[in-house]
């Protein structure tokens, strides 16, 4: 009990749906939980209730033995006493303060020397050296994000709450910052709850994913499990990515990388960087199926397996093939009938190397 945060609360809105926050987070170790869901699913409300900026209507929130909110006693700890770090979606940097002023804002009680030392530490950690006299308006989006992170990390929070940390950035910057953020969060001994609606971000950052929809937490689990084995149709519709498997790079050749996924080997476009461990994401519409075990096309990845499930969905059918991992494929219903697909049918699944999307773990 003492080493976790538990939240089970409800926030009711007049005339709107109520938001249910049900979460458990380990405390005191680096662990990133991603709260994943479409906009309007109540993610930010959950974050604001945990920060103490919003008052839940019912329920209880405890953090490592402290009670942050208890509807029965009516007690609520103010945001000031929770010792958390909250990263706002567009960073909320103080426009009248310099970068240095922003970063040291939360540590006014330290003496000059100590404050300067912490500032230097943060400027180094977040690669902001030389920018300490700038105003937020003079910074790029990526720099603003790093200043905002430095501002919350400088006071060594017990919990990090990140609200769509990358959504305010343009696409190329986002790509780069995503990797940096992952490294940074792994290096900090702070549990993190990160809200996002971007599945790439969720996979890249998460140790654990909590899927939210319609104001409720629907499923919690490791990222690959949640994304490739959604608990029900609602979760499946929210996560949208049909196949997520974990793999390790075992070779690189001609701009391609070979990845070992369980007992099979898949080719993908060679990723940047030196990561070895990846999530492999494959969209169901990029998978083609043939009867039998003799592939006919020239595509790189041929995976022999057996159909485990055929689920009609409108004009198409969703077929799951067990080929070392569970691979989802989308075929027209006509094709499903022509191929006489049913559980047990031996098939060969084909995926182009370029359709295998790699996300570093």
């Amino acid at each position, binding site marked *: 009990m003492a080493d976790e945060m538990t939240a089970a609360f409800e926030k009711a809105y007049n005339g709107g749906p109520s938001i249910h926050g049900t979460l458990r987070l380990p405390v005191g170790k680096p662990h990133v939980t991603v709260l994943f869901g479409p906009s309007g699913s109540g993610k930010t409300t959950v974050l604001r209730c945990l920060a*103490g900026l919003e008052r839940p209507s019912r329920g209880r929130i405890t953090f490592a033995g402290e009670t942050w909110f208890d509807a029965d006693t009516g007690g609520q700890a103010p945001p*000031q006493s929770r*010792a958390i770090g909250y990263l706002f979606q567009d960073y909320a940097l*103080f426009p*009248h303060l310099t970068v240095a002023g922003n970063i040291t804002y939360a540590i006014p009680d330290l003496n000059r020397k100590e404050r300067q030392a912490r500032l230097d530490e943060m400027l180094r950690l977040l690669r902001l050296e030389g920018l300490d006299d700038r105003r937020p*308006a003079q910074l790029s989006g990526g720099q603003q994000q790093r200043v905002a992170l430095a501002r*919350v990390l400088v*006071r060594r929070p017990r919990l990090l709450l990140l609200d769509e940390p990358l959504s305010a950035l343009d696409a190329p910057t986002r790509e780069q910052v995503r990797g940096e953020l992952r490294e940074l969060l792994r290096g900090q001994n702070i549990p993190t709850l990160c809200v996002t609606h971007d599945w790439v971000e969720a996979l890249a950052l998460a140790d654990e994913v909590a899927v939210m929809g319609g104001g409720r937490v629907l499923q919690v689990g490791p990222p690959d499990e949640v994304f490739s084995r959604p608990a029900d149709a609602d979760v499946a519709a929210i996560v949208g990515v049909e196949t997520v498997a974990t793999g390790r790079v075992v070779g690189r050749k001609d701009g391609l990388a070979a990845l070992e996924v369980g007992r099979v080997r898949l080719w993908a476009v060679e990723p940047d960087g030196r990561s070895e461990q990846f999530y492999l994401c494959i969209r169901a519409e990029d998978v083609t199926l043939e009867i039998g075990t003799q592939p006919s096309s020239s595509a790189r990845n041929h995976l022999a397996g057996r159909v485990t499930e055929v689920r009609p969905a409108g004009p198409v059918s969703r077929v799951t093939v067990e080929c070392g991992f569970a691979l989802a494929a989308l075929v027209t219903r006509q094709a499903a009938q022509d191929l006489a697909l049913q559980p047990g049918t031996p098939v060969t699944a084909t995926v182009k190397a370029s359709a295998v999307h790699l996300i570093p773990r």
Partner: protein
Amino acid sequence: MNWTAILLTLKLAALTAVILLVVGMPIAYWLTYSRRRWKFLVESVVALPLVLPPTVLGFYVLVAIGPKSPLGQGYQAVIGHPLAFTFEGLLLASVLYSLPFAVQPFTAAFGAVDARLVEASWTLGISRLATFFRVTLPLSIAGVVTGVVLSFAHTMGEFGVVLMVGGNIEGVTRTVSIDIYDEVQALNYAGAGQTAFFLLVVSFVILSVVYAMNRNLWAVWPMK
């Protein structure tokens, strides 16, 4: 020119502005952030001096500070002399009369400060009071200066309330505007003209300084 009246007026205006700065900010803060349903009532009360004839306001203040009212009696018991027809009584009336000129610009300025900046400060562990002085006030300084100056200028020019509450006591409650009125009544147009011109120049200079400074303030603190 009646220098006694001019100095008295400047003193009254300055004190009124200072008191409104201290009293007006908490009221404006409450009006900005409160979610009480009866907030509109407070807003209406604060705005009343804008629409009431000064004589009506002056009349009620006079009754309220008179020797028969609890306020007047209490004041006399503590201080030793009555409140009506004194500088203090006039000051009280001026503060009430200029209340909207301070509170409304303050409220507008506080309301224009991004609420997320305030919340960010709270989640960084900074108390509400410290957040006010470190975030809200610096970001709304232009509006606060405007409110202080407007209440100063408005007090310099008040007439009806002074006449009702202060009477017309040389060196105690005779302000510039009353002095000008007296001079005109006595057909001393030259004296009235001098004082009137002085008031005009002072008001213009103050307003010019404020507007020039306001622009400068924004240049120092660029908004996103």
